[in-house]
């Protein structure tokens, strides 16, 4: 037996394997790759699903459905189009929004307080996820957006509202909602990049 097994991925530690590589392995039918992705992403996915659905049981189902989607469609992941992280989190978001919309049989709006983002508490768990980007950076970047852009993005992303619903809630034309969201996301990217270069003081917390 040689030390250099031809397929010796078990010799490597999980930490060495990129998300993209794990998706490739999942696409080849390796279930353990999903287990590793679960360990990396369950915290952020469950946190996101909990915030969107505000219901632990529904949030758990949404996370499970998301991992099943990732498993089933891993072969369709195209690294030239999106990072693995963006792809995985997009699926997680999609599942959570789907779950919350199912509970909203018509486009009737939930109570006002449901749609206000809950107070942002500083998480100190992000380091476990081994990602460069820090939650505080994103929150700081969000807080720097034009208020109407931020509102539109938060209603869509965390409230699970559609363009129509955002338009009627904010009393804005559909086209305005569309451009606020798009411009807001572009600005968010710019702000994140700016903050990352500046490096926030460690004590700076959310909003």
């Amino acid at each position, binding site marked *: 037996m040689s030390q250099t097994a031809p397929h010796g991925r078990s010799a490597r530690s999980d930490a060495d394997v990129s998300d993209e590589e794990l998706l490739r392995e999942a696409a080849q039918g390796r279930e353990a790759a999903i287990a590793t992705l679960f360990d990396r992403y369950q915290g952020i996915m469950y946190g996101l699903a909990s915030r969107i659905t505000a219901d632990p049981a529904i949030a*758990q189902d949404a996370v499970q459905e998301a991992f*099943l989607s990732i498993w089933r469609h891993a*072969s369709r992941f195209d690294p030239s189009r999106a990072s693995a992280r963006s792809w995985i989190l*997009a699926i997680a978001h999609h599942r959570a929004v789907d779950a919350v919309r199912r509970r909203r049989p018509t486009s009737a709006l939930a109570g006002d307080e449901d749609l206000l983002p809950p107070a942002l508490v500083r998480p100190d768990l992000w380091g476990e996820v081994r990602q460069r980007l820090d939650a505080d950076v*994103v929150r700081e970047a969000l807080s720097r957006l034009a208020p109407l852009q931020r509102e539109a993005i938060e209603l869509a992303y965390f409230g699970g509202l559609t363009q129509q619903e955002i338009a009627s809630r904010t009393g804005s034309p559909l086209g305005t909602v569309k451009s606020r969201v798009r411009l807001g996301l572009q600005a968010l990217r710019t702000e994140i990049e700016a903050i990352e270069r500046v490096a926030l003081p460690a004590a700076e917390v959310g909003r």
Partner: protein
Amino acid sequence: VIGEPTLSCEQVDDLAGLYVLDALDPADARVVARHLEGCDSDHTAFAEVAASAGALALAAEVQDAPADLRDRVMSAVASTPQARPVADPSVPEGQPAQPDHRAGGSSLIDRLRARAGSPTGAPRRAPRWALVAVPALALVLVAIGAFGIWQGQATQTDRLALLREAVVAAADPEATVAVLTGSDAAAGAAGYAVFPADRDGFIVVDGLPGLTGDQVYQAWYVGPGEPLSAGLVDLGGDGLGVLTGLRMMPGTNVVALTVETRPGAPAPTTTPLVVGEIRDVATGQGPGSA
């Protein structure tokens, strides 16, 4: 598919933000997903906003899932076949060779239950739809071939043609198909809703339980709004039901059968017994692919 609006690259880019935030209604999202799938342009607008959308997830508070969720996920993974790779036809050892049509899983049934006014039960394990449905119909075909059960009957010959077409369509990853699976009283039922590109769609379902009196199986288009009737299923004494004249209604992503009273109901009044999600041919990147 039929008569679906198309958008220019510019118009699609304009929707990028709403698309990556899952804020488009499903019909619009499908149009965008199809465009991206078939378009050679770079559409860098999507790459830009997708990164921001991914970052937004970090603004939610990280929260550990309950410890048993990992086991639940991994056991669901172990019993869930993967979608057939598009580019690589080789199927890894141990993976089912059938294309996987299972889409919505238990949530789909729960959603329909909710629409029919029935209580939603505990989360159910998703059936392995493709594995159930394909052999069931193959058996029907074998029976027809071997025994000529339906020879000489025009309507049954039509049914045979529909069955053959459904089986062929189900194996075609580009075809618009919903794999239908029965539950509860119709637990053994399996079939397809097929939407050919050039004419009306149809449903074939095998293994439907017999009905009494003036009961009838009614088919429904299910989308974001209220379910729309797709008509009544013509049920043979052999448990094979057929319905022709289906349209691809905008926004429809699920086809379902309920038991209703002749001449049918304006809205479902019972729990759907047979359900299938229309397989999305535009399973590409982005949230629409999930």
